[in-house]
């Protein structure tokens, strides 16, 4: 029993310490003046990897989620003779919740896990170490551009997701089920507010971007430099990011709406 409590305590202390390490890592990666000239190219390359390569999955998911919402929403609203509110339903559901959350989950699965694996591999093959010994700080050379690329890409991806989702809903509701296009969009326009809804969506996307990217980078940077260590870290990234996104979503929703 005593042993159990002891190991529980050890576990907790270990977790708190790794939170501390994660914070220190982020601090060292982000402080100090950035060297724009040298690091801009790195940033662009990472935005390509994190953002551009995620477009397909984001757009396809957004389209289907919008279409499903349109279909389900139409069938439910039909019973209340309120199909005119379909635009409102689809747009608010996507902008307030599904857009940022699903984007973040997809991002964690596609980009986050890749970041963890990449950095874990760099660590395992001593590339980070050798960079350190060359007097190049890997936190600033490797971690920092990836972090910023994530923070820049995610809100844009989220925005694309929302837009595609709304048009996916329109495709089903208007083009297939015969709702009037004007009704779809005017219901939307009268209920979606620029700052309260779309602004909140961007804030959510930013917060999720920071959380997911941070978790991914830290898991890679802190992993055991072995094959199984990297695979564990990758799994941890996906699990922790998903939980963080859902938890943060609740907190942010409670704060903003």
């Amino acid at each position, binding site marked *: 029993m005593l042993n159990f409590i002891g190991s529980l305590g050890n576990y907790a202390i270990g977790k708190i310490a790794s939170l501390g390490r994660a914070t220190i890592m982020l601090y060292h990666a982000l402080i100090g003046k950035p060297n724009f000239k040298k690091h801009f190219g790195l940033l662009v390359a990472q935005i390509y990897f994190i953002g551009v390569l995620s477009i397909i999955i984001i757009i396809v998911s957004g389209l289907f989620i919008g279409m499903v919402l349109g279909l389900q929403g139409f069938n439910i609203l039909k019973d209340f003779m309120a199909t005119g509110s379909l635009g409102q339903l689809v747009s608010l559901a996507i902008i307030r919740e599904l857009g940022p959350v699903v984007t973040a989950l997809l991002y964690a699965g596609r980009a986050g896990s890749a970041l963890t694996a990449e950095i874990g591999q760099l660590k395992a093959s001593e590339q980070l170490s050798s960079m350190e*010994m060359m007097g190049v*700080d890997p936190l600033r050379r490797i971690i920092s551009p990836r972090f910023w690329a994530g923070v820049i890409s995610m809100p844009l991806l989220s925005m694309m997701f929302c837009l595609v989702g709304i048009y996916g809903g329109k495709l089903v509701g208007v083009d297939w089920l015969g709702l009037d296009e004007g009704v779809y969009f005017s219901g939307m326009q009268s209920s979606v507010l620029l700052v309260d809804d779309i602004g909140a969506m961007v804030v959510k996307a930013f917060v999720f971007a920071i959380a997911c990217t941070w978790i991914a980078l830290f898991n890679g940077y802190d992993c055991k430099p072995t094959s199984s260590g990297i695979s564990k870290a990758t799994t941890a990234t996906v699990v922790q990011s998903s939980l963080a996104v859902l938890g943060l979503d609740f907190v942010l929703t409670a704060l903003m709406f």
Partner: protein
Amino acid sequence: MQQNIVEIKNLSFSYSGNVIYDDISLNIKRGQITAILGPSGTGKTTLLRLIGGQLKPTQGSIIFDGDEINGISRQKLYEVRKKMSMLFQSGALFTDINVFENVAFPLREHTKLPDILIRDLVLMKLEAVGLRAAAYKYPQELSGGMARRAALARAIALDPLMIMYDEPFVGQDPITMGVLVKLIKDLNTHLNISSIIVTHDVAEVLEIAHYVYILHNAKVLGHGTTQEIKNSNDPMIKQFINGLYDGPFAFNLKSQTSYIKEL
């Protein structure tokens, strides 16, 4: 200008309960090749990481070129590291970029030289290790020996004061080994780069080393110039240098329980 490029005083280091070093002191002389010998598993690589500031000693001080490494600020540490260089056992080349870019990497990071000049410098460094022909190959296309030479070219890119070699001869065929030995020797004589070689390949390193330290059981077992070590009468040093099976060195790792009992 101090005579010693590295001074280690009363260094202790333990890692998760294991004592790796217990109060050792050693000096690395400027412009010389110093060999650090010891059986595998005595934490010789750890010593290099301690000098490079990647690990923090539990106790003691490490002075590199007049700067105390232990307790230095992070920023200063990165400044100091520009003057030293380390050749990793694996080479640790950046796998996503080719050999040329690998060698150019420290130059691009630390200097503002124009591309044309960097190109010339890189080709010079590659020529020095005989790999100019492989400049545009990727690390995974290189053999182990070539990768190590490419890593060496990268290590000398910034003309460091000191290079630390971590087991440079391990797993190399005799010819490559000879090439590496000659390279290390040449770099030392022509560029006057101080060198620390951590190894257990005694025969090769004794050909080129000026000074030798032998580590064993977290202590310095013995040290002296190559001649002194070769002529030493200490039975342990003798066994290690000559690679004898029989002697005071235990072949087995020390175990808590006796062999008979455990069986």
